């Protein structure tokens, strides 16, 4: 029964994320994070999921939903077995795709001609800048002590973390280094400096 409720909650959560997730996978991150942390996992676990989602093939949104669905059941104190966690990831992924399917069908069927009307255009003049804010929020929410440590707790790790953040930012933004190479290098730096 509890498991059923958890599935229902997973479905509802990821359906809403699919419905309001403007701006693609990255735009969804703050939405996903505010829903799943700290209810189903820690910020550190969520960041690991995002890292793994970026390193593996496929859309980041799908990867994150699949992983979160698994972890939500796996982390549950009731200790459900693997098979229920797999079902959890099926439900989260399906729920994420479902609104797209419904909306796209409606749009493909009749609304394509309305997409260029002034009314829809003015809705998007508000939405577009807001999505930028959502992405900024995703970054800010992840800037915490679980991901960076703190100067009091571990000054060395904090400094290394900030340095890796700046290096990755400049590397991908200015020098256009491939993000996956950047993750691999940061992981190597972690192994050398933070072991």
């Amino acid at each position, binding site marked *: 029964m509890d498991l059923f409720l958890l599935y229902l909650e997973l479905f509802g959560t990821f359906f809403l994320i699919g419905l309001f997730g403007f701006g693609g*996978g990255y735009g969804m991150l703050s*939405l996903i994070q505010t829903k799943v942390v700290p209810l189903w996992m820690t910020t550190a676990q969520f960041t690991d999921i995002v890292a*793994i989602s970026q390193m593996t093939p496929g859309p980041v*949104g799908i990867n994150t939903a699949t992983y979160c669905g698994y972890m939500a059941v796996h982390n549950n104190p009731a200790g459900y077995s693997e098979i229920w966690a797999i079902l959890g990831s099926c439900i989260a992924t399906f729920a994420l795709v479902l609104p797209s399917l419904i909306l796209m069908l409606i749009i493909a069927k009749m609304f394509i001609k309305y997409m260029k009307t*002034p009314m829809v255009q003015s809705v998007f003049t508000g939405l577009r800048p807001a999505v930028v804010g*959502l992405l900024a929020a995703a970054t800010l929410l992840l800037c915490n002590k679980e991901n960076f440590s703190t100067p009091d707790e571990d000054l060395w790790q904090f400094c290394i973390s900030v340095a*890796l953040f700046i290096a990755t930012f400049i590397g991908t933004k200015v020098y256009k280094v491939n993000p996956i190479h950047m993750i691999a290098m940061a992981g190597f730096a972690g192994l050398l400096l933070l072991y």
Partner: protein
Amino acid sequence: MNYELFKTFSKIGIFTLGGGYAMIPLIEEEVVNKKHWVSKEEFLDLIAIAQSCPGVFAINISIFIGYKLRKIPGAIVTAFGTALPSFLIILMIAMFFHRFEDNPVVAAIFRGIRPAVVALIAVPTFNLARSAKISWTNCWIPIAGALLIWLLGVSPIYIILAAGVGGWAYGKYIKPTE
């Protein structure tokens, strides 16, 4: 035909690293240049619409193309095809990763990766700001939205709703677009 659609889109799902936007060139190559399912112009329109819609970008494009070719069964097949490879790969990683999570070597690697991932999310924020034409007159919208979510814990859903309604009201009452 459904099998063909499934095969093409699962191939796109397997071979794209780095998320939805990285998929566009591959989808274009397969769907426009090789299979001639949609024309170049139609494809550009589809991208514009799929970008404005909520949901996973690559899934949205797949659904549009599937629907255009084979109606609802086509849309389901293409969505399934795009999602399935990622789903299976992530599931396998999820099942094994938590066994290594506490391993000191893996833990050290991820202590290095986490700050890098935060930076990788910060970069598209600035790229998106440019394409969304953020200027001095509208930069308060993303700043206010981000602060409300970050400091006050407001759900991003309310920010989206408020921005949509605000944009509509602005266009209707303050500065009607002709």
